[in-house]
């Protein structure tokens, strides 16, 4: 399972970097969306995958019986998803505004502030 997830994360990273290096700003945003999902999946996988053992403590006991899934990575990823959702929403508005101002979906025409 871990191996499969690792390959999947690798493909997601590769695809997002490929998209980010295109000239179109829409593809840049698609690349960024994929990138944040890839990072979240990586976090999830690195935190350890445990199937069918929710971290619940039986009644009367003080610690869960046996090995259970670690709830912390999931909580952290939830935070990261919310943050990247907000940032990507901003990025979408930004490219719309940039498209209105520059009248092109082409990063090569946005070099005015470069050196």
């Amino acid at each position: 399972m871990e191996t499969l997830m690792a390959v999947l994360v690798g493909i997601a990273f590769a695809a997002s970097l490929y998209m980010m290096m295109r000239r179109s700003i829409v593809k840049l945003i698609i690349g960024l969306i994929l990138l944040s999902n890839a990072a979240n999946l990586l976090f999830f996988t690195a935190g350890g995958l445990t199937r069918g053992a929710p971290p619940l403590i039986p009644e009367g006991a003080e610690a869960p019986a046996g090995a259970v899934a670690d709830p912390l990575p999931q909580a952290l990823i939830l935070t990261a998803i919310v943050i990247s959702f907000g940032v990507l929403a901003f990025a979408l508005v930004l490219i719309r505004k940039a498209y209105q101002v520059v009248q092109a979906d082409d990063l090569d025409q946005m070099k005015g502030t470069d050196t």
Partner: protein
Amino acid sequence: MSLEIALPILLPLGFGAASLAAHRHIALQRWLGVAGTGALLAAALWLLRSVGREGIVVMHMGDWHAPFGITLAADLLGASMAVLTGLLGLATAVYSLASTPIGHERYGHWPLLHLLLAGVTGAFLTGDIFNLYVWFEVMLVASFALLTLGGERAQMEGAIKYVALNLLASMLFLSAVGITYGLVGTLNMADIAAKLGEVDRPGLVSTLAAMYMVAFGVKAGAFPLFFWLPASYHTPPVAVSALFAGLLSKVGVYALYRVFTLIFTQDVAYTHEILLWGAGLTMLTGVLGALAQTEIRRILSFQIISSVGFMLMGLALFTPLAIAGGILYTVQDIAVKIALFLTAGIIFRLLGSYRLEALGGLYRYRPWLGILFLIPALSLVGLPPMAGFIGKLTLVRAALEEGAWGITFIALLTGLLTLVSVIRIWQQGFWRGLPNRVADAALLTGERRDATLWLMYLPVAVLAALILAAGVYAQPLFALSESAAGQLLAPQAYIDAVLGEGAP
């Protein structure tokens, strides 16, 4: 409970919320802006005093003790950076009163300013690496919005590069945090430092170190990851540019200092060698870029990169003297950069341009402005009696003691080239006569008066006085940097302070 460590984060958050609630009342927002940044400065000074007296100040959020809860921990480095954040927040808030266009104020300049400061102090004071990521994002989102307020073409173009590259760095940082958690099962920085030594996978640890290095290197603007910085920093109004120049890239530098003195010290020969090469190339490319520019704000943007090289040099040499020099240089450079950007804003107000060919005659009509420009500019170059001289002297001495001739040569060469680039601004903007191209020089020659100009002069004058005072009477600042470096190089005290009192 130590309230003083939470206040520098809570105050800007509270004032940000209050100015958001008062979004229809610009005058009230302005008052809140000055009061909030002033309160932040006072709270940060209180924190620095406590840290100076009692050592590292720690607070566990919700009384969940480390390593389970989120910990705030302030050592001397974090506390002094928080003080500088307050000082610079106050300086830019006062300056914004006179310089920020009313449209920007209507669309949230003041709340965003507070939230940006909250993110920056949060990053300086947190002791948890995932929390550091969160504060980075708070800071970034506020800076995205501040950068794009106004919606001009140049701002949009700059913002796309800024957003894309900073998001890439954030995601790399998040991935590194995930792998760290998988490796040691904790996110508290002190706990990671204590447990990473037991992990017997040197390859993975080195990879992790490189991931943090690249992620923070992008944020700091280190070679070869700095290209977003000169493309975007000069596009917003000058008060915002000054805040970015003074603080944002320094947060990346601070994170590098924290992570590479506390956590990744197993293989110093490998990681810090890379940092040393990065530092040398950063300072040289930065200053060469500055020489190629003809617009004041762009020259200064490249000078930010060059200075980051000096800060990294202190970290890379990794001796007590070098780290003290790096901290001292960072502290004075924050004030220098912000003073230079604010001076550029005054020049723009007087002559209506940032381009060198359209400037001139400033020294003839405004000699005091010339002096206010020269103090931070000479500190940037590293000439006595400014604070920058002490910083560079310490760094170069540390490099010579280590026998690092290459970096010494590059540092001194960079100093010389910096002098050339500063002299270009001085010669074209201040020294020569008023060129014919200037459209409207009535303000400069005093035919027309500007009632709010003193609000722009005041912060620059205070910062210049501080830079001069820190150069002439350098002992307190130098002693502070030395003790801060001592704390960084003895991480066991930090680990004990965070984990000790709550450990079962």
